[in-house]
């Protein structure tokens, strides 16, 4: 992971601190709707492209209502895209069965399923990113605990997130000092790597010791406590019901094709 990717995690944290109608919704409602969204999107058959497009509405609507700028989300999608590209790009080579033709341009099943993979990737990744960007890690942890996730795992998530920035700063300072002092920066030999990462590990463990002592000094008795979140209100209910109904409708009928025939005036 390149250090530059770290900068973006701070952006997500800042976005989560904004105040908007979406940010004020109960986290459980957002988490449930996002899970339903991902499952619905992935339940389509492999050659489906057009019926998937209406689902773009969900991340876009959340971004608009939550005042999330599109650049950080798009940048993250692009950074993670190579994996889906590598796996999906073989589909057009392996599956050459023609499914449609526009004049001389013939579309094969492989290109269709490739487009479907990329679209699904963009949909699922953007939904997850938008969920975090308009919620934040701490409320998400609280919601997970209230949805039945073991408390110790939620504590682990929150601890990890809290010290991510601290330890990552320490790591990048170490990398910088090695780069400044070495003639050939960029590649470490295994023994230097071992002592560098080993030092980082020991420093992290020392820090954990100090944190523990600080917790004990403040009354930690071995049980983790997570302060409660908000309660589900009317707006959360409307948010959930509305989106779940939309997902069900978009799954049952191809809304894009329906709109296309409406615009073009041709019967389907």
């Amino acid at each position, binding site marked *: 992971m390149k250090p530059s990717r770290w900068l973006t995690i701070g952006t997500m944290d800042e976005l989560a601190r904004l105040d908007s109608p979406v940010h004020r919704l109960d986290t459980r409602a957002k988490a449930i709707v996002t899970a339903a969204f991902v499952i619905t999107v992935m339940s389509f058959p492999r050659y489906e492209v057009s019926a998937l497009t209406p689902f773009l509405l969900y991340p876009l609507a959340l971004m608009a209502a939550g005042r999330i700028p599109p650049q950080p989300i798009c940048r993250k999608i692009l950074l*993670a895209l190579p994996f889906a590209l590598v796996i999906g790009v073989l589909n057009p080579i392996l599956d050459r069965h023609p499914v449609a033709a526009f004049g001389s341009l013939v579309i094969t099943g492989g290109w269709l399923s490739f487009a479907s993979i990329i679209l699904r990737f963009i949909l699922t990744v953007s939904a997850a990113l938008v969920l975090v960007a308009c919620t934040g890690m701490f409320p998400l942890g609280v919601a997970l605990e209230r949805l039945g996730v073991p408390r110790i795992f939620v504590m682990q998530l929150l601890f990890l997130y809290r010290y991510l920035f601290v330890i990552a700063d320490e790591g990048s300072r170490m990398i910088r000092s090695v780069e400044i002092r070495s003639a050939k920066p960029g590649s470490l030999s295994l023994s230097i790597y071992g002592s560098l990462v080993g030092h*980082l590990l020991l420093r992290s*463990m020392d820090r954990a010791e100090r944190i523990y002592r600080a917790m004990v000094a403040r009354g930690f008795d071995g049980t983790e406590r997570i302060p409660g979140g908000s309660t589900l209100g009317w707006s959360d209910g409307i948010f959930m019901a509305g989106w779940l109904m939309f997902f069900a409708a978009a799954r049952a009928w191809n809304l894009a094709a329906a709109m296309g025939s409406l615009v073009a005036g041709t019967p389907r």
Partner: protein
Amino acid sequence: MHMADALVSPAVGGVAWAVSGGLIAYCARKVKQCPRDDLVPMMGVLGSFIFAAQMINFSIPGTGSSGHLGGGLLLTILLGPHAAVLVMASVLTVQALFFADGGLLALGCNMINLAFFPSFVAYPLLYRVIAGNRSGALRTGVASVASAAAGLLLGATCVVLATTASGISDLPLKTFALVMLPIHLVIGIAEGLATAAVVAFVAKARPEALAAAPTSAASFPRRPILAGLAIAAILAGATLSWFSSTRPDGLEWAIAKVTGRAQVSGAGSKIHDNLAGIQDTTAILPDYGFRPNEARSGKAGRKADDEDPNRQPWPAVSAGTSISGMVGGLITLVLATLGGIVLSRHRTTT
């Protein structure tokens, strides 16, 4: 390697979610029973450490490429398997949420591949067996490389199986496995070297940090894991072979459905024929059934097989294929057990 949401069907993702959810609940209970109060901040900070350590690369000797720490094995060595699974699971969750590595639906798959296999399979069955209780640098190194590679190979196998079972990618099972497994062998060796280097440093600088793993190896039950693996291998072999008999891969089945032919038109290349020939000659159980009496020659035999009108649609629950699946599972198990015995012998004599 992280599995992406775009390649997982809800059924596969849901099953993996259920399994990893149970795993997390089990590990959370085990960690809660642990008397160490400082485990909670230690686990949290070590999770952050894994992220930071993944930023640092080292050059793999002899090649132009570089590797970094995956983390599963190192965490297990430091914290024991139960706590390590929780830490790795949290690392994967944050990666899915913030970096779009993997995804929400594929999170269960990734937890099994990158947390369960290193901690609950590779560590107890390989690392503890090879490394033993004394710490020699060479032995720790061999143990780290072997178990990191084994853990990653198991994970890669699972990625291949989950992708094929989901049926969204067109990649055939065999090709995908042939691409994934060698790559992950190399990545696994690199991760093993990185783990060994860090463990060697800690053993020299602060040996007590390594001895502090809350679940010591002596109390860690190896037999239930072996039994569980045995049952899983036999079940997987038996059920998968029903499918693999009539549709050698998900892809061939899908293509046959779409194009009406069992082979892709591009598959007539020389490499394909050569590979098919090698496969047919080396396979003791060709196409996972019993070898037919008449000699089959490469593609012609396959074609005749594919166009056989009496072929049953899947899943053909035939005794022959189920038996070969179970036999394959058993052979793998026997080999693994023998390997373990030989290694533990070696340890007690030296």
